[in-house]
């Protein structure tokens, strides 16, 4: 069953994998399409970090666009202000550098993966809600769509990375955590707008988390001692 699932996923996500440049499967398997052009861990990590950076930048732009278009001025959050509450995750996310430094590589990677996977569905949902807006700018829609696509790629990359670095044979498919509280559909417009705005802001923060984790992980890969000196 799992093997079948993995094969199906490999076939379905073949374009994404090609764009990512990372073959999903690199071992002989019956009935599976093998593409064993291997990539080193360092390069893979660099690529994943680039993905994370790009996702964060686009999400930041989308959040700004949305804020300018739809959010009333008094309710706009300042740069340093976050008047919303993001959904808490299933497991604790380290909140400081010291905490992060205490976490192992494995935990870092898994944290990243969980984060990525937790946002795949809300972003899809966000796309549907944005379509309901009358005058949503095209750029906003394109960006959100792009982000959701790239998130999938990121997930795949992290999975491969986990496998390579941790030799952890995990399921590549993203399982949807039930712990993520679904956002209730509110018919009120203002609440809907605020809800969407909160969604985008929280995603932006989490994207930054992913990026930071991955970069810290990269430092550990190159020079373990200097990373902890600071």
């Amino acid at each position, binding site marked *: 069953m799992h093997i079948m699932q993995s094969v199906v996923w490999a076939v379905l996500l073949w374009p994404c994998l090609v764009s990512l440049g990372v073959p999903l499967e690199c071992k002989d398997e019956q009935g599976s399409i093998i593409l064993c052009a291997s990539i080193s861990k360092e390069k893979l990590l660099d690529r994943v970090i680039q993905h994370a950076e790009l996702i964060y930048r686009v999400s930041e732009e989308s959040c700004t666009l949305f804020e300018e278009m739809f959010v009333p001025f008094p309710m706009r959050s300042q740069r340093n202000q976050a008047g919303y509450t993001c959904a808490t995750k299933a497991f604790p996310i380290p909140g400081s*550098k010291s905490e992060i430094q205490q976490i192992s590589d494995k935990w870092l990677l898994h944290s990243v993966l969980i984060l990525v996977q937790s946002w795949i569905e809300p972003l899809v949902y966000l796309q549907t809600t944005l379509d309901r807006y009358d005058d949503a700018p095209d750029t906003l829609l394109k960006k959100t769509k792009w982000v959701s696509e790239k998130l999938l790629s990121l997930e795949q990359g992290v999975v491969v990375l986990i496998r390579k670095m941790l030799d952890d044979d995990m399921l590549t498919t993203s399982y949807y955590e039930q712990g993520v509280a679904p956002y209730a559909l509110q018919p009120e417009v203002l609440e809907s707008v605020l809800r969407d705005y909160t969604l985008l802001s929280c995603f932006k923060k989490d994207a930054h988390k992913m990026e930071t984790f991955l*970069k*810290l992980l990269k430092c550990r890969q190159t020079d373990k001692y200097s990373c902890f000196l*600071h």
Partner: protein
Amino acid sequence: MMWRDVGVTLILSLILPVVAQGARHTPPGKPKLTSCRSPDKETFTCWWEAGSDGGRPTTYSLFYHKENSETVYECPDYHTAGANSCFFSKNETSIWVNYNITVVATNALGNNFSDPVDVDVVYIVQPHTPENVTVGVLEDEDGPFLRVSWEPPSKADTRSGWITLIYELRVKLEEAEEWEEHRAGQQKMFNIFSLHSGGVYMVQVRCKPDHGFWSEWSTASYVIVPDYIPRERSMWILIAVFSAFIFLILTWIITLNRSSVKHCLLPPVPGPKIKGFDQQLLKKGKPEEVFNSLVVQSFPPRSTDYEDLLVEYLEVYVNEKQELMPEGKDLQDVGCLKSKSQSDNDSGRGSCDSHTLLMEKCGGVESKDESSYEEPELLQGQAGSWERLERGDSQVVDTPDSSDGRVKTWPLVFSPSIHGSSDNHHYGTLEMPKQHSTSEITYSVPDHLFPTSTSFPHHHHPEYRDSLGEYSEYRCSRSPSTGVAYHWEARHPTQAHSNFNIRNLERQKEATGLGLPPSRSMEYVEVQKVNQENQLVLKPLSSHGRGPFQRQREMAEAGQYCNYREKEGAEAERYPTQQQGKTTKDGPVATQLQESTCLTTSGYVDTAPTMPTF
């Protein structure tokens, strides 16, 4: 009374608030959080500003609570970051977590809460300025360039990837106003090209995390760019080469057209010429052929009025007793002048080169049969008219032709009064000797008047002068345009200032006798025309307007022309030049004898001997 109470109440009500105002204390005003900043994403600081303190000492305290937690904490550190600040250390700092911060102002009367502010540390990162900004000048094949390098702020942990910084730098010349900004991305080095040689540049760098604020600009670093080969000098070299090239081309063009340029700048002065006069023939020594070519068959024009052309002024002493022989029997003794002139198109030559002045002795010494000459015969009648006889072939009448610029010399004929004392009907003619060997023109004077009619060469002029009992002013004036006017004057040698040495006292007497008798009346005669019989028709001038000054001037002018001729003609022989300043003399006395004999290669004597006038 009631009014008093009311007034007191009123006053109290007015005074009391004022008094109480000063003494009243209020709770503090509302403080306000101004900003919170984190330099390294690990710690952060918040600042607030106080409101009114209400007259009482007021304390401030900061309280916060994190999102999803109701636990309220107080600021751990009020002093590290200065007054009215709160510093959160690493242990108290959590990122990706919203802080809800509130500042409370407290005094004795109460407290006041500020508006709460939500802060996420991630979004308030503002690093310090980049450190160790170094600028150096490096050389390249295209010229020098600046290399700027720096280091991230020490507090920001970019090595572990905790913070990713992007940099920006700006450059300007020291005296410029506008900065030139460049994004450097995540690199820590940057090159700047296209520098001004010898300029002083200022460089500044700043940085920003990908999710925060820009840092402050670093302190300016100065760098001096050395003088490399300046473009301006090479440009001047190019300009110099180009202009030299153009100058060479112009010189070459001018050299090619040298003659026409010279013709344009220094137009040659045309001089009188005799058409048909062959200079080469004359050199060969065959004057006859030369002169023959000058003969104009149509000369003299018989129907032309020469009144305007020929002006002769003869100072004639009219002796009514005398009679002139109409015939020119004595003309043989009279030297005559003949000048043959023909129209000459050779006017491009200098005036002194022209050989239109051709005087030929006719009659007397050498007679050339083939050459025609004329013998002016002056007959003096009662009225003082003169005639001129022409002998020989009717050839060229030396009528001054102004168009040709020919010089004609006329024999000087003395009035009958000159030879009145002695034989009559004497014609004194002046022979203008030429120095040319082949041809001579001699002035033969009647023997009783003068010594012999030998040819008087140029150097005999003094003798000639001496022998003459009279002095005549012979002017030769030549000008290409105006023609020639001859002026004879037989002056009365009344004064004793004569420079002549009379050889022969007898001659002198005769000369004097021949010449103008003293204190005789003098009359000026003008030659009007030449009548059909080639006789001069004279008319006396009405006035004696023409004074010696004028004559002198004319002579001077004649001399000028002759001098000019002499200068022009390279082969002209030297001759004593005429005094140029003769005209300035006031008195009629010209003590020095002036003679200017302009000789050309043809032997033409263009003499203008001027006798001293009295």
